[in-house]
C-alpha cells in the first residue's frame, strides 16, 4: 500500500486525542460506567476489553458526546465533551458496532454522502474514493450495491468511510464481531497498517486474540470499572501466574472412575497455587509447571495441555466464568 500518509492525520496537535477522568454514567439505579480514567497517547492502539455489558459502548458514546455523562470530564481532540463534541467529531473516525452503511447506495456513494456530513468538498471526496476503496480492498466494487457485499466487505467499507475525514483518532466498537476468520485477519491487517502509519486507535472488543494482536495498551473493563491497565504482556505478568496446565479426561487414580474434577479435588492444590474447575476441565496456574507435569504423566486416563498464560486467563480471572447475557 503506497498511500500511508494521506489516510489519516497522525500527530498534529499536542493534546491527547482522548482523555477521560472520573467518568460515570447512571441509568436509574444502575451505574453502567462507574469511574473510568483513560488517557490515549498519540499513535497508540488502546483496547478496551470487557464482557458484554461491561460499559465499553457507553464509554464510547460518552466520549463522542452522544450521551451526557452523569459525572466526569472528557476531552476529545483537545475539546471539552459534550460542550464541543460536534466540533471534536470533525477529527474522529468511527466504526460502529452495527453496520450502518446506506443500503440504497453504492460503495462510492456511501463514501461521498458520508464525506458531505463533514462539510468536505465534493470534488475532494471524489478524488479520494479510489484510494479509500483500495485501502478497503474494494477496488472493483465502486459501483456495487451494499446488499451485494459480504459481511467482511461491509466492515472494510465502514472502515474506509471512517477515514473519509482523515481523522486524528479512529474509534472502533467491536470491529470484527460476526466476521469469519479470513475477514477478521484482513481487518487486523488493515488496522495494523494504520497503526504503523501513526494513527491513534481506540478499539473495543471481547476477543482476546484481537487485543493481544493490536493493542499497545489495553484495559480490562467489567461492571463499569477498569480492572487493570497496561501493555498485554505487562497485564499478563502482573495479574497471573506465567504457566497454565489444563487437565481433562478420565482419571482412574482415585480408587474408581472420576474426571479431572476428582483429580483436582485430591491433588491440584499440591502443585498449583491457584486452580479452577470449569465444566470438565481443571485449570492450574503455576510458576513452574515441571512438578505438576511429572505428576500428570504418571496418571492414567488424564490428558493435559501445558501452555503459557494468556490474556484470556487474565480476563477470566478478573471477570469470572459465569455467562453474561
Amino acid at each position, binding site marked *: 500500500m503506497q498511500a500511508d500518509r494521506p489516510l489519516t492525520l497522525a500527530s498534529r496537535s499536542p493534546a491527547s486525542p482522548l482523555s477521560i477522568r472520573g467518568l460515570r454514567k447512571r*441509568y436509574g439505579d444502575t451505574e453502567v460506567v462507574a469511574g473510568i480514567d483513560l488517557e490515549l497517547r498519540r499513535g497508540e492502539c488502546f483496547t478496551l476489553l470487557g464482557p458484554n455489558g461491561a460499559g465499553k459502548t457507553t464509554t464510547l458514546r460518552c466520549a*463522542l*458526546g*452522544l*450521551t*451526557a455523562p452523569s459525572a466526569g470530564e472528557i476531552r476529545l481532540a483537545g475539546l471539552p465533551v*459534550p*460542550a464541543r*463534541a*460536534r*466540533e471534536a*467529531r*470533525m477529527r474522529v473516525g*468511527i466504526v*460502529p458496532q*452495527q*453496520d*450502518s*452503511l*446506506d*443500503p*440504497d*447506495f453504492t460503495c462510492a*456513494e456511501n463514501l461521498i*454522502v*458520508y464525506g*458531505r*456530513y*463533514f*462539510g468536505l468538498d465534493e470534488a475532494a471526496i471524489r478524488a479520494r474514493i479510489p484510494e479509500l476503496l483500495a485501502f478497503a480492498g474494494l477496488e472493483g466494487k465502486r459501483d456495487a450495491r451494499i446488499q451485494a457485499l459480504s459481511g467482511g466487505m461491509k466492515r472494510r467499507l465502514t472502515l474506509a468511510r471512517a477515514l473519509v*475525514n482523515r481523522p486524528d483518532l479512529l474509534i472502533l466498537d467491536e470491529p470484527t464481531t460476526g466476521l469469519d476468520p479470513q475477514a477478521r485477519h484482513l481487518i487486523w491487517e488493515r488496522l495494523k497498517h494504520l497503526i504503523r502509519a501513526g494513527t491513534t486507535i481506540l478499539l473495543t472488543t471481547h476477543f482476546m486474540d484481537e487485543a493481544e494482536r493490536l493493542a499497545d495498551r489495553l484495559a480490562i473493563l467489567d461492571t463499569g470499572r477498569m480492572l487493570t491497565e497496561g501493555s498485554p504482556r505487562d497485564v499478563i505478568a502482573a495479574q497471573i501466574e506465567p504457566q497454565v496446565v489444563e487437565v481433562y479426561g478420565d482419571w482412574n487414580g482415585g480408587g474408581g472412575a472420576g474426571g479431572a474434577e476428582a483429580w483436582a479435588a485430591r491433588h491440584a492444590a499440591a502443585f498449583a497455587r491457584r486452580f479452577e474447575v470449569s465444566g470438565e476441565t481443571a485449570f492450574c496456574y503455576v510458576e513452574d509447571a515441571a512438578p505438576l507435569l511429572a505428576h500428570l504423566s504418571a496418571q492414567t486416563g488424564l490428558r493435559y495441555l501445558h501452555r503459557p498464560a494468556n490474556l484470556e486467563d487474565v480476563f477470566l480471572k478478573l471477570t469470572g466464568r459465569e455467562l453474561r447475557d
Partner: protein
Amino acid sequence: MPTSASSWRAPQLSRRFIPVWRRNFLVWRKLALPSVLGNLADPVIYLFGLGFGIGMLVPEVGGVRYISFLAAGMVCYSTMNAASFEVLYSGFSRMHVQKTWEAIMNAPIDLDDVVFAELVWAASKALLSGAAILLVISAFGFVDTRYVLWLLPLIFLVGLAFAALGLVMTALAPSYDFFMYYFTLFITPMTLVSGVFFPIEQLPPALRAAATLLPLTHAIELARPLLLGRLPENVALHLGVIAGYGAAAFWLALALTRRRLLK
C-alpha cells in the same frame, strides 16, 4: 450536543441539515418514478372514482362540479399522506432499522439537524408528489389554474406540519405496527371531518367545532378557494394554525427523539 442537558431545550438548527436532506434526496432520485407514481395513484384513483361516481349523484357543491370541489381535498389529503408515510415508515427505518441516524451522528452533525432534515425532506417529498397531482388536475381541467402556483408553498407548509406530527409518532414507536394506530385513530377520522370529501358545514355543530381545530381543515380552507380561482379568507388564521401545529409538534418530536436516542 449542546451543553444544556434538558430534552426540552430549544431546537439548535443549522445548515448542517442540508447534507442529510441531500442523502434522502439521493435515495429518492434512484426511485423517483415509482415513488411519484405511488404517491399519485392513490389520490388520482379517489379523485376519479369518487369525483365521477359521487359526481353523478351530487352534480354541484357550492356552485362547482363535485370533482372540482374534491380536487383541493385530494391535494391536501395526498400531501398529508406523503409527508406522514415518509417520516413514519421511512423515517423509522432510518432511525431504528438501518441505523442511518446513528451513522450521521457519528459525523459532526447533531440529532437536532438530523430530525430537522427529516422534517424538511418529508415536506419536500410531499411537494414533489403534490406538484404531480396539481399537474394532473390542471391538465384535466378540473380546477381553475389562476392561483394554482400558490398551492406549491401551501403544500410545503402542510407537508412540514404533518411531517412534524408524524415525527412525534416515530419518536415513540417501538415498531412499524405502532403507526397503524396513528392512521386509524387520527389520520382517517381527520380526513373524514376536515372537508376533504364534503363541506364541513354538513357536520353536526359539535363535530364541526372539533373539525376547526384540526390542521387538515385549515389546509383545505386555503387550498379549495385557490383551486377554484378565488382568494381564500382568513389567510393568516389558517396559516397560523398550520404553522402552529408544525412548530409545536416539531418541538415535541425533537424532545421525545432526544430522550430516545441521547440517553
